[in-house]
């Protein structure tokens, strides 16, 4: 009886070993196939971006009807020509975009971390209701609040200024970031706050000297995503900015589309490439934060 049991155990071990060996061999083969598959997929995915880069350098009669990524002749001049290709220089557009984006990021980081600190660490009456309301705003499409917001800003005389784009960021209207930071703040040990409180620290001191430094990953994630989203934002500037001197980069790029002469396609692609360069640089530097941020919160 005992023998049978040990033998069957031995058998099992042998079978398991054999299986593992077989698995290892097939995995090696499968690994190569997977890499080939993945490289092909990646190439197809990235191809449109590479095509845009190469088209920005091609002579204009080569842009269409060709799959090639190699310009027969590299036309660097599309870049300086594109930079001055609209009635107003792109120096201005990039300056405008940078101004709006930097202030929006600052606003988002301050106001969202304030709200998150209150929700995650402070006690006050009505906290649960306020939290539920905050979560509900996550679902509301921007298009629903757009018209009344526009009317408010119109009455305030803020249309054709950057205020409608920037001020809401200082009022924690991006509930996503509040939620993201709440999740992070809650993981920090409460003993830290309590010890600091006993030492006589104010709530603000705790926020500034304990919570914020320890939450740098969450704060950075929020800052990175607000930078990218505000930089790319099209609808906001489209609604609020009418003077070409105030245009941000996305609005300026769209102007290339209305002048439909083939000769300017190179310039249009050149400026399109420049418009995404800051985002790609951000992405390369902060990739870890971005990828973790999405896995943590389901940000888009």
């Amino acid at each position, binding site marked *: 009886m005992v023998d049978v049991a040990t033998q069957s155990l031995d058998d099992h071990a042998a079978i398991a070993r054999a299986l593992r060996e077989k*698995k290892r061999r097939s995995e090696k083969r499968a690994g190569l196939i*997977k890499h080939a*598959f*993945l490289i092909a*997929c*990646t190439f197809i*995915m990235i191809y*449109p*971006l590479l*095509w*845009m880069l190469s088209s920005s350098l091609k002579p204009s009669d080569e842009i*269409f*009807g060709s*799959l090639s990524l190699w310009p027969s002749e590299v036309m660097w001049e599309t870049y300086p020509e594109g930079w001055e290709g609209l009635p107003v220089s792109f120096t201005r557009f990039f300056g405008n975009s940078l101004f709006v984006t930097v202030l929006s990021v600052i606003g988002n980081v301050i*106001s969202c971390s*304030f*709200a998150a600190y*209150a929700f995650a660490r*402070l*006690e*006050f009456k009505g906290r649960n209701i*306020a939290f539920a309301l905050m979560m509900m*705003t996550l*679902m*509301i*499409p921007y*298009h*629903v*609040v*757009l*018209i*009344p917001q526009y*009317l*408010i800003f*119109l009455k305030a005389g803020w249309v054709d200024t950057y205020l409608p784009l920037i001020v*809401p960021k*200082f009022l*924690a*209207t991006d509930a996503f970031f509040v939620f993201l930071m709440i999740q992070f703040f809650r993981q920090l040990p409460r003993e830290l706050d309590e010890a600091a409180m006993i030492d006589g620290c104010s*709530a*603000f001191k705790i926020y500034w000297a304990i919570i914020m430094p320890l939450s740098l990953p969450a704060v950075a994630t929020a800052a990175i995503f607000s930078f990218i*989203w505000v930089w*790319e934002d*099209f609808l906001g500037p489209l609604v609020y900015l009418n003077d070409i001197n105030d245009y941000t980069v996305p609005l300026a790029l*769209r102007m*290339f589309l209305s002048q439909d002469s083939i000769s300017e396609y190179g310039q*249009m*692609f050149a400026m*399109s*490439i420049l*418009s*995404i360069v800051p*985002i*790609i640089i951000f*992405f390369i530097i902060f990739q870890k934060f*971005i990828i973790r941020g*999405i*896995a943590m919160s*389901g940000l*888009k």
Partner: protein
Amino acid sequence: MRDYLQKYGAGYVFLTPWAIGFLGLALGPILASLYLSFTQYDIINAPEWVGLENYEYMFSFDTRFYKSLQVTFAFVFLSVPAKLIFALGVAMVLDKGIRAIGIYRALFYLPSILGGSIAVAILWRQLFNQDGVVNAALGLFGIEGPYWLSDPRYSLYTLVVLAVWQFGSPMLIFLAGLRAIPQDLYEAAEIDAASKPRQFFAITLPLLAPVIFFNLVLQMIEAFKTFTGAFVISGGTGAPLDSLLFFTVYLYNEAFSFFRMGYASALAWVLLIIIAIFTAIAFYSSRYWVHYENERG
């Protein structure tokens, strides 16, 4: 009173910016939008109360409203499943301890981070031009590509492809979900000689159901709100023949091209209700097909 302030004061101080934003820029506008939806308002003259007229007109006579619903629903039902299937497929290939996973992950995610930009919308218009790259690629296989942008039968597909191209964030969420599935389940299945497809349907799919559900809700809401790509590719109007008249594009034009603020507000409320219904359906149906692990047994 002093005690009360001492105890709760800090909470209210820190909450103040959010509270102003919530009342002034979220709750207030939502209610204002509801009110405006019962009026006719052109910004110059004061809003004029018309009762249910906007909604009556919309549902009884407005063919463009129905067209925009049809376009948007077609887009949601084509793009969301395709995007999720793609995201899950790639995530499963990436999940199994592959070398250089970081590089692949980053490159697959890159389109998602650029996808909302005007640069990509402009690029897309050129790719799908009649003598653009897509038709050149089809030509290699001897297929004569259609006029993607000017033929109303095909124009929506350009946007579906654009949406599927941005499968990066559901892919990352799937990857996190796949990591959470215990590996010994697969080992046990292997010993029982269960085939790979069977392992997928018996282990991966049920255990991943909560993540699939989460992605589904998120992507559906995103798809209903699609604007930039549709606006730029259709030249701002929903052309050709309203085949790219997304709900949001119609709403934008009613409000900011024709200044029919009352009617546009009614449209906005319809959008809000559609999104709410679909989110509710997703939540409700999840009871039947989503099993959270700790609920079993």
